[in-house]
């Protein structure tokens, strides 16, 4: 009974997801055996630098990786117990835009330039619902108002909107069918700072109103702090640390996570130099054996390079993929 409850509780569960991009010459290991889970109504923040594989994870869940050169090599994505990877395409289409939606990074190019904005919202409604065209149009207009755009602008084209408004339209499209899961891939990175706050607030409001679960991909720790319940840190295609927001922020344990926080300049102090992490992320087509962070890690040992590293439990109960955890904790405490 307890088992069932435990499993039934996981709304979304990703197990050992592995994705490769390949050309004739080489194979890029974009996502390496990633596992995480998400409860209904919660928001998970996926954090990491550019190229870490966050977008690939999201796209794999929706199965909209590019046709050419990308492949889900292994793993399961269970949504309410159903494996999305194994689902036939036709059924998957029924899920896209309907049960799971995605908001993309660059609003400037995410809308079809030759289609009216309102129609683009109505389209997703029509795809997943029965009814008449007028019905869909009406609902699309409601969505527009919901995101703060006057419904008269239904017939306008994307080029007549500013960046921030375009992103609102995209949010409208994503939420039009009231999805259970929203994937937001850096939704505000391409916007300027003032608009960023607006859009994020909007997402937050709608999420709360509609009870949507969300995976929020970002590299901005401030965003994570405000909007996420749980955090997973992604490095070189793998998750190196995951836990609740409080756990990660109060007790970052993985050397990479520590470095991330360290790189954020302190507003209250007068610093001359920034403190980036030394070195560069590894070449994803040529990942080192063992821990991917080893070349850049102060606490690296021989054992780090021997084989795949397992997740270890930290003192406060969250997960960290490090085999030299005590040394790291001791070293950081000393600072």
């Amino acid at each position: 009974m307890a088992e069932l409850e435990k499993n039934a509780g996981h709304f979304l569960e990703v197990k050992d997801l592995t994705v490769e991009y390949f050309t004739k010459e080489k194979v890029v290991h974009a996502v390496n055996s990633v596992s995480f889970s998400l409860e209904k109504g919660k928001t998970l923040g996926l954090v990491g630098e550019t190229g870490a594989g966050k977008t690939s994870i999201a796209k794999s869940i929706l199965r909209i990786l590019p046709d050419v050169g990308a492949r889900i090599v292994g793993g399961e994505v269970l949504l309410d117990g159903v494996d999305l990877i194994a689902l036939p395409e036709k059924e998957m289409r029924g899920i896209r835009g309907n049960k799971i939606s995605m908001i993309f990074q660059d609003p400037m190019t995410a809308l079809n330039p030759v289609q009216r904005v309102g129609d683009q919202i109505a389209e997703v409604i029509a795809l997943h619902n029965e009814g008449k065209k007028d019905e869909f149009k009406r609902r699309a207009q409601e969505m527009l108002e919901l995101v703060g755009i006057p419904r008269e602008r239904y017939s306008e084209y994307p080029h007549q909107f500013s960046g921030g408004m375009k992103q609102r339209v995209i949010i409208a499209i994503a939420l039009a069918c009231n999805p259970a899961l929203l994937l937001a891939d850096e939704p505000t990175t391409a916007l300027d700072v003032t608009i960023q706050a607006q859009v994020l607030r909007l997402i937050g409001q709608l999420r709360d109103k509609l009870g949507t679960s969300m995976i929020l991909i970002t590299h901005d720790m401030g965003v994570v702090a405000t909007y996420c319940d749980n955090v997973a840190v992604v490095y070189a295609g793998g998750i190196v640390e995951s836990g609740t927001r409080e756990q990660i922020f109060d007790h970052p344990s993985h050397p990479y996570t520590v470095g991330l926080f360290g790189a954020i300049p302190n507003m209250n102090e007068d610093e001359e130099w920034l403190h980036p992490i030394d070195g560069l992320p590894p070449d994803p087509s040529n990942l080192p054996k063992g821990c991917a962070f080893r070349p850049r890690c102060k606490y690296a040992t021989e054992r780090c390079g021997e084989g795949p590293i397992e997740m270890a439990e930290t003192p406060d109960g969250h997960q960290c993929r490090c085999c030299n955890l005590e040394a790291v904790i001791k070293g950081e405490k000393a600072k």
Partner: protein
Amino acid sequence: MIRYIIRRLLWMIPVALGVAVIVFTLMTFCPSDAAEIILGSNATEEDKEILRDSMGLNDPFFVRLGDFLTDTFIRFDFGKSWVTKADIKTSILERMPRTFVLTVSTLAISVLVGIPLGIIAAINQGKLGDNMCMAFALAGISIPNFWLALLLVILFSVKLKLLPPMGIGGLEYYILPAIAGCTNGIASLARQTRSSMLEVIRSDYITTARAKGVKEFDVITKHALKNALIPIITVVGTHFGRLLGGMMIIETIFSIPGMGTLIITAVNTRDLPVVQVGSIILAIVFSFCMLIVDLLYAAVDPRIKAQYESMGKRRVKHG
């Protein structure tokens, strides 16, 4: 938008005038003797001189240019052909429809075959479908039209007796000529469609469409194709313009008296009036084609439509 169209139409007048002056000047200073052409090599010098005088060929250049321009543009009197004595306006009015039908049907086949070929090639990029379609297109550009025309005639007219081998009449007379002439168009359209589609398919809004759960077929046709249309429309437009004057080979083989044969024969025989009027007509028709192409852009892409409308508005501000 109306302002834009009117402005474009008005521009055709200086274009036509410019073509007229240039062609007239070129043909006048071309080394050839109109009298000898008309009278043939069996005539004496005296005969030719009499004719030259009566045709006004010995008048000064600007007088002749002026006469020509007034006759053509004000009185719409295109005169008679020097060689055949046929009324040029009548000839053009008779021949233009045939060339038009031929051109339109050739273009229609090119579009109906070429664009799908390009789409298939783009979707199956790098795979067998892509290579096959591009091979077909390559064959289309390489195969000479006249060779293909004669083979088609041998197959369909002589061996199978399905279609007439030459001449004019109902629509069946235009089938073989259209098929023979369309290979070039298929090739260029297929290649342009393929490259346009490849560019568009990588766009973010295509990913958005897929993420909405749109059927793949609709993604290609409704979302991708519409955006890929702009360069394709350009190719169709220029191709149409080229076809109008360039169907001479097909017209000759199939004995279809059209604009192509009229103008090329006139150039070879230095039949000045026909060349001049023919060039002006073609220039005007081509301008129309370009206008329609530009209007199609506006119909397909609202950003371009906005551009046209703002062009008019800017003028008003300064005026």
